[in-house]
């Protein structure tokens, strides 16, 4: 969780309520009415009980059941009817709340997800992915608990407390006062224990995290542990963390376990107190003070004692629920925060359209897929100018930094004519990968211009700009689905044949046909059942099916064996053919045939030229190439 975000409980609560009513304008009010109704009815029996007891009081010494029966049976019948109604409304609201809760969660999930798709890449680069995920897991889960349980329960308990309080005051002020004071003590207890328990549960969570981190690291390096016979030292380290976890867990659970006995027995104390005070009042015939003006009698004391149980029990439950509400509110706030994140801005108005070349050489926009693309540039007079998409990319004095204070690229100027291959070489942190983030406007540059076919990319609609660029990234990301689905990701309208053709081009066809279900093989967890090289081949096929005029290739850093590397290289070469290509090279063997090689150091281009020129220069590139320097 993000620290230091002030909790705005009231604002969040209001917004949550508003959201609920907005999503469920009919169901929500109905549910509320039913909750209130069943709560009110649920607190009435004490009144009937008192009446029935009064009847018994007057009749029991005579032993004449027949005389009392009509009165009692009538009362029981009324009570049963009310119970019946309460039961029905309970069924209605519990069913409605089940529907509302799940519906709300779904809508929130979808809203969060939709909003998230429109966030700039910076958000994903600067926020921990685990933290982003916890919006969908922890926060949604606490919210479910709150909306489905705490919310209706609190409402109904609130009503119960109110109703019972009114009835109590109806009978006797004095006794009510005893109960109220007692309840106050009870709330204090619960809050303090609940708070302590929550602190220790957080500590337990932290300790558990430490154990988890340790186990994960050690299990990853378990073979090294074996090779160095380091088992006993490792066990000793583990014991320390494990014991700390135990002690936190013990304390947290001790407090949690103590809560119930405390609540119940404070309830018992109050009960005893009420009995004593009631007894004193009854016997001393002290003047009663109440709404009803009734004098003390046994028919007041007995139901009053029952109400004491009801009242303190409810107070106890409320104070328990409060802790859940606090958690739920924090979760709701985080969910709203994600929904409120500023989406990516796009002021581009230049779009990419299909065109047909006319006889006179001019371009005409056509509504079908002509495989000829052009940039449609709006002119000041309202007309459009069409520029053919060729893949000419120029950097003019580009400066860039991820944060304003720290420039990572300084005054970069370069050009790549259609069909040319430009390679970037340099040590880790030199700024190679950053360049890929700029051409497709994942990040915007601070100074200078980037021109695409002569058009400033700031004026191009982002979706169209990105559609005209293909990227093969260092780390391959595949999606859950079939191999075919994953290739088609590059071009959703592609036919099976087109996808297979792309796979063949990438050199992936061979291994795919050897998979158990060929192109229909299901991939899960980022293609865990494939090798690193195979995943890269699929990423290349995916880019091939998109068929963009400009490609950005970020070579994989992780070592794959030489044979697979050769196959991957061949696939990449096939994909590069006839396109403008930017290669971020981590191996020098792949850049030799580039039209231009840029050697980057700390954000500056320090050398540029073809392979032969750079070798002849005997500069940094020469040193890298001869192995005198480590590239990574």
């Amino acid at each position, binding site marked *: 969780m993000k620290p230091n975000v002030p909790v705005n409980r009231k604002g969040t609560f209001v917004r949550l309520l508003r959201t609920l009513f907005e999503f469920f304008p009919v169901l929500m009010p109905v549910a509320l009415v039913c909750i209130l109704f069943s709560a009110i009815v649920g607190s009435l029996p004490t009144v009937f009980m008192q009446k029935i007891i009064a009847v018994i009081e007057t009749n029991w010494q005579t032993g004449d059941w027949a005389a009392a029966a009509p009165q009692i049976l009538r009362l029981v019948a009324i009570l049963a009817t009310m119970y019946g109604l309460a039961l029905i409304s309970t069924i209605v609201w519990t069913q409605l709340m089940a529907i509302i809760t799940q519906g709300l969660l779904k809508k929130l999930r979808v809203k969060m997800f939709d909003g998230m798709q429109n966030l700039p890449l910076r958000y994903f680069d600067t926020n921990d992915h685990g933290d982003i995920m916890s919006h969908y897991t922890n926060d949604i889960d606490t919210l479910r608990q709150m909306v489905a349980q705490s919310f209706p329960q609190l409402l109904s308990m609130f009503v119960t407390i109110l109703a019972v309080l009114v009835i109590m005051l109806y009978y006797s002020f004095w006794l009510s006062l005893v109960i109220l004071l007692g309840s106050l003590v009870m709330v204090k207890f619960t809050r303090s224990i609940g708070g302590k328990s929550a602190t220790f549960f957080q500590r337990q969570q932290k300790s558990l995290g430490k*154990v988890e981190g340790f186990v994960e690291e050690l299990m990853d390096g378990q073979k090294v542990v074996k090779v160095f016979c380091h088992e006993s030292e490792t066990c000793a380290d583990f014991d320390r963390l494990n014991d700390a976890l135990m002690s936190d867990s013990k304390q947290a659970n*001790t407090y949690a376990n103590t809560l119930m006995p405390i609540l119940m027995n404070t309830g018992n104390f109050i009960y005893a107190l009420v009995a004593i005070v009631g007894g004193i009042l009854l016997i001393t015939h002290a003047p009663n003070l109440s709404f009803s003006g009734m004098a003390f009698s046994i028919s007041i004391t007995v139901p009053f004692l029952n109400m004491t149980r009801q009242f303190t029990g409810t107070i106890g439950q409320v104070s328990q629920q409060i802790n859940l509400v606090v958690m739920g509110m924090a979760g709701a706030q985080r969910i709203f925060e994600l929904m409120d994140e500023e989406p990516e801005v796009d002021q581009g108005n230049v779009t990419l359209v299909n065109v047909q070349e006319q006889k006179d050489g001019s371009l005409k926009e056509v509504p079908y897929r002509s495989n000829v693309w052009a940039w449609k540039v709006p002119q000041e007079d309202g007309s459009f100018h069409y520029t053919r998409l060729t893949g000419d990319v120029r950097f003019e004095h580009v400066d860039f930094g991820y944060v304003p204070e720290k420039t990572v690229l300084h005054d970069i100027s370069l050009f790549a004519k259609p069909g040319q291959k430009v390679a970037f070489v340099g040590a880790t942190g030199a700024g190679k990968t950053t360049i890929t983030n700029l051409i497709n406007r994942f990040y915007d540059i601070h100074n200078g211009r980037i021109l695409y076919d002569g058009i400033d990319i700031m004026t191009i609609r982002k979706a169209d700009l990105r559609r005209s660029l293909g990227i093969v990234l260092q780390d391959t990301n595949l999606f859950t689905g079939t191999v075919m689905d994953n290739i088609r990701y590059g071009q959703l309208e592609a036919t099976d044949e087109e996808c297979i053709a792309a796979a063949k081009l990438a050199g992936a066809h061979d291994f795919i046909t050897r998979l158990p279900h060929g192109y229909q093989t299901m991939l899960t967890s980022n293609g865990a059942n494939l090798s690193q090289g195979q995943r890269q081949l699929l990423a290349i096929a995916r880019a091939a099916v998109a068929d963009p005029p400009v490609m950005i290739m970020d070579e994989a850093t992780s070592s794959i064996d030489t044979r697979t590397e050769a196959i991957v290289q061949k696939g990449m070469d096939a994909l590069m053919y006839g396109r403008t290509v930017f290669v971020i090279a981590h191996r020098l063997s792949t850049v030799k045939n580039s039209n231009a090689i840029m050697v980057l150091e700390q954000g500056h281009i320090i050398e540029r030229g073809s392979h032969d020129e750079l070798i002849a220069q005997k500069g940094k590139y020469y040193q890298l190439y001869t192995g005198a320097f480590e590239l990574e």
Partner: protein
Amino acid sequence: MIRLLAKSIREYKRDALLTPLFVTLEVIIECIIPFLTANLVLEIQNGCELSTIVRYGVILMVLAGFSLFFGRIAGTTAASASAGYARNLRRDMFYNIQNFSFANIDRFSTSSLVTRMTTDVTNVQMAFMMIIRGAIRFPLMLVFSFIMAYIMGGSMAFIFLFTIPVLAIGLAVIICKVHPLFVKVFRKYDTLNNSIQENVQAMRVVKSYVREDFEKEKFSTAAEDVCRDFTRAERIMAFNSPLMQFCLYSATCLILGLGAYFIISTQGVALTVGKLSSLFVYSFQILVSLMMLSMVFVMITISAESAHRIVEVLQERSTITSPANAVMDVKDGSIDFDGVDFKYSADAERDALSQIDLHIRSGETVGILGGTGSSKSSLIQLIPRLYDATEGTVRVGGVDVRDYDLDSLRNAVSVVLQKNVLFSGTIKENLRWGNPDATDEEIMEACRLAQADEFIQLFPHKYDTYLERGGVNVSGGQKQRLCIARALLKKPKILILDDSTSAVDTKTDALIRKAFREFIPDTTKIIVAQRVASVQEADRILIMDGGRIVAMGTHEELLKSSPIYQEVYESQNKGGQEDEA
């Protein structure tokens, strides 16, 4: 399974047994209290003295105090027993994993072991606490409450013979219907969350292919599906509280109606108003305990799956252990393979190694070349007995590796694994893995040999530089050099480098080999590599292909005789040395 799990209770047995005892005491008091209050009401009705009321009040308070006291102790012992039990479980699992051989390690993935040691243990811990507190408390409460109700109300208690089965059957039906639904929907829910994670991680791909809308649609469909299933399950679950209310309400009506009849018709002999009101308390206690019992039951069912996964780890027996009367001393660094075949598992289709006969003299330097899948790594892993040969024998210093004490053997045979790992901690701490008693001078000496000293001296904190997890704050080449230094600190008789200089530049690679030649000439050195340059000066070079040694000889001999060697050599020397960083 239960017996194996119970073994881990150990020193917490006392707390685990005390808990039900105190819970029992607590429950008894809880059931006496309504009995007393009923009598109190009776006394008040009969117009008793004030002192009687006060006496009852004080007794009530004392009992409440005791109940609180017992409840508190039971809560503490339960927490202590379950937290301690969980600790022991984790410890037993971890210790057992430390005994795993490489073959055992291969069988479990890291993430699965992590889940087993965290989430699964926490589930079992909660279930354990539920059992020692709840499994006693609620049935006891049920029985006591019923008995008390019988004592107080006589035949009135038979009302509960109607409500208890209704509630029990109702709950059972709900649980039976809802449990499989929840199992299914939680699996879907996991898939949904995994797909979000996938989307977050692949955001660059999503954005560069402009697939935001496609992803939204995909997600919305999946979310809709999860929502539908969840709602179905939750709606069945939602019948829990109306069911409870129904039982409570009908009990109340029956108690009131029948109670009034009994009181009046027997003139207060069979029942009194006070007893009547305590019947409500008992009826509530009975129904609540039934409800809680069903929750305990669900909890146990859920944790059974976790328990099963824990037992799997506890039951796993190491495939490699030191023999009795083990040889503790490794004489020299000679290695012999006699007719060795090797398979990774008994049902593997093909041998990873077949018919290996190889004899290496102490102090010799041997290079091994071969493509992926040629089983170079398999071969060297048999030497420190990380795996056992399926057929034939492997001898070190003239003794079968299976006769050695494992620690002695592995301390004499130092391997730098291909997938090597540094741990979070300072450089010094990491290097001391090789020898916990190494002096600073020895550490620096090893680093100088591995050509690591130079770059370590450039770090602001030098040897005390903190390495992040996985050594991400040093480069690949630096990491490999640190791993070599760590292996050197063992002062081994045999040093094996499994492709351990692939990210090191060629010049440094040569310097490392030179240092080996000059400073540890008596150590047997085996170098597995991709680069010919790394093995060129070795006394002998083995060429492996498909699990067999296909050629053996010096660089010059192989250049003449082995076509594979010629091919590799030429491809790597064409147009100068290529960097493979």
